[in-house]
C-alpha cells in the first residue's frame, strides 16, 4: 500500500486517483472526529467532503507530507467554523412561510453519551481517538500519521481514557 507521502507526491504529479487512497484511509477517522464534534452525520459528511477537496487543492502548500493528517483535521476545523458562521447568518434571515425550520433526518446515533464526551475532549485527544478507533489504526500507525513519538500517542490515549471515564461516570450518575 502506498504511503501518505507517495500518494501526496503522485497527486501533485497529476494523478488525482492517488488521492483516493488518502480519502479511503482517512475518511473514517475524519468522519468519526466530525460526527463527535457536530453530532450531525449529514453535516459531518458535507464538511468531511469539503475538507478533503480543499486539502487536495491545497496539497502543494503542504510543507511536510508527514503532517498530512493534522493538516487535514485543521482544514476540517476551519470548514466547521465557516459552516457555523454561515448557519448563524442563515438563522438571522426570516424563513419563508410553510417551510419547517428543521426536517427530521434519519440518523443512528450510537452511544451518544460516549460520543458527546469525546466531543468535549481537547483537540489533541480527539485526533488520537479518531485515528485509533474510527480509523482502526494501531498506536504505531497513529504515531506515524501524526508524526509523534509512540510514547506521546499512548500517553494521550491514557489521558483521554482517564478524562472520558470521569465524564462518563459523571453523566451516567446523573441519569
Amino acid at each position, binding site marked *: 500500500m*502506498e504511503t501518505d507521502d*507517495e*500518494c*501526496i*507526491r*503522485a497527486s*501533485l*504529479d*497529476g*494523478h*488525482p*486517483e*492517488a*488521492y*483516493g487512497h488518502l*480519502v*479511503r484511509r482517512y*475518511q*473514517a477517522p475524519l*468522519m*468519526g472526529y466530525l*460526527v463527535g464534534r457536530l453530532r450531525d*452525520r449529514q453535516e459531518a*459528511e458535507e464538511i*468531511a*467532503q469539503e475538507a*478533503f*477537496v480543499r486539502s*487536495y*487543492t491545497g496539497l502543494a502548500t503542504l510543507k511536510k507530507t508527514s503532517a498530512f493528517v493534522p493538516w487535514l483535521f485543521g482544514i476540517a476545523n476551519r470548514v466547521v467554523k465557516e459552516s457555523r458562521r454561515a448557519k448563524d447568518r442563515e438563522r438571522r434571515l426570516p424563513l419563508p412561510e410553510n417551510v419547517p425550520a428543521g426536517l427530521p433526518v434519519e440518523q*443512528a446515533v*450510537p*452511544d451518544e453519551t*460516549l*460520543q458527546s464526551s*469525546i466531543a468535549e475532549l481537547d483537540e489533541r485527544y480527539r485526533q488520537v*481517538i479518531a485515528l*485509533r*478507533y*474510527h*480509523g*482502526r489504526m*494501531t*498506536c*504505531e500507525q497513529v504515531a506515524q500519521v501524526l508524526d509523534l513519538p*509512540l510514547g506521546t500517542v*499512548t500517553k494521550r*490515549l*491514557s489521558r483521554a*481514557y482517564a478524562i*472520558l*471515564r470521569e465524564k*462518563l461516570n459523571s453523566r451516567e450518575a446523573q441519569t
Partner: protein
Amino acid sequence: MNCRQCRKSLVPYLEKVPGAPAAEIERHLAECDACRGEAVAVRALRDRMIQLGEAEGAARSIEPTVMDRIARHSQQKQEGEPMMTIRKRLFAHPWRLSAASIVFAALVGAALILVGRGNRYAFAQTVEAHRNVRSVHVLIENGAGLTLGKDGGFSYRQDSGTTEVWIEVGEDGKPVRVRADTDWSSGDGPYTVFWQNDKASVWLRSKKVFWTFKDMNVVSKIPKEIMDPNSVVTTLEERMAAGKAHITQIKLNFESEFSPKVLVMNPPEPEGMVEVYVIDPKTKLLQQYEKYAKKGNELVFAGRFRFTQYNEPISASVFAPMLPADVVRLDQSNREIGLAQGKMSDSEVCEAVVRQFFEYVIAKDYDKASDIWPGWGTDALKGGNELKSVAKIISIGPAKPDVRPGHGGRFRVPFEVEWSDGGRWSGTANVKPWEGQPGRWRLDGGI
C-alpha cells in the same frame, strides 16, 4: 512493578504496543485487585470506543463524492497540469536545459539507459511497449504556429491550430485506418481526413466537398508523428543510437510510482527544437510529446501531441463519415492523377502539366483536366468562366522552384492563354509531385 507503574502502562499493554511490559503487568494484575479493577474498566471503555468506531465506520463512503468533485475541479483547470509546470520551468530557466544537455544518452548493452539529474529510465521499455500499440487517440496542438527557420528566425505557419486523430495500426506497425479532424483556418479551411485501404477522403467542411482519391496526399500534410505515432519513439531511438540526441531526464519536484518519466532532448546547436517526452510510468507508452523552438536562451512553445486511449477499441462510426446532404461527393480514387514524369526534368514535367491541363480544357475534356488538377470536379471546371473560354495557349514556362517558405518541392509555372473573344489571360500555375502516386506531378492550389 507497583500500582502507579502498572496504571501508567495499562493502555500501552491493552493496545499491545511494542515495548509494553506485558509480563510484569500481568503478574501485577494477578496480585492486585485494585489494578485489576482498573484494567477491567479501561478495557470496557476501550471496547465501547471500538464499538463506536465500528458503528461510525459502517457509514457510507464519501470517497466517490470527493473524487468526483476533485475530477470536476481538475477538468476546470487546464489539462496536463504537470506539463504546464514543466513548461514554466522550461521558460523560467532555459539555462538549466543547456546545462542538462551536457549529459549524454549512454548506450549500455542492448538497452538504452537515459542518465540525467534524476533517476534512470530504460528507454528500450518504451520502444518495446510501442511495438504493441494497435490503436491510439491523439490530440495535437500546433502551438502558435511558430517554427524556427533555417535562417535562425521564427516564422508563423498559417496552418497552425489543433488536430484530433484516431489511428488503428496493423501487425506491421503501419496505420490501417485514420481519421483526423483539423480546425486549421487557412487554405481549404477546416477539414476532416479519413484514410483506409490506400484511399483518402477529405471532407472540406467549409467548401462542402467530400473528395476521395488514391493514397494520401492530403494526409501527408499531417506530420509523421501523427500518422505513425510509434515513429516518435523509433526516430528518437535511432537518433540516440547515432549519438545525435542529447537527452536528459527531468527530475520532478515530487516523484512516485505514478509520476511520468519526463525526458528532454536538447538540440546540439544553440538553435533548434527542444523536445519533451512524457512517458507513462506503468505502460511505458508515450503520453505526451512537446516541441519548443530554441533560439539562444529563448524557448517558444511550438507544438504538443497528447497520446491517449492506447489500444482501446475505436468505434466504427469514427471512421464512417456522416455527411450533410448538401455536401458534394467527388471520387477520384480510381483515376491516375497528374502526369507521369518519365525522363523529363522537374521543370520540364511542370511545364508539361500546365500545357496538358490547358489542352484538355481547350478540348472541353474536363474529366481529364480534373485529373491534372485534382480536387476539382468536372462540373466545377466546366463552370469556371476563365477556363471554359480558353481557346489557345500563347506561352507556358519557364518553371521555377517556389522558394517561399512552406512550399518546398513546388514549382511556379507562368502561362499566357487566349480566350475565345481574343482577350488574354496571364497567370502562374503551381505544380508539385503527387505524393499518393509516386512519379506523377499535378496542379496544386489556385492558378
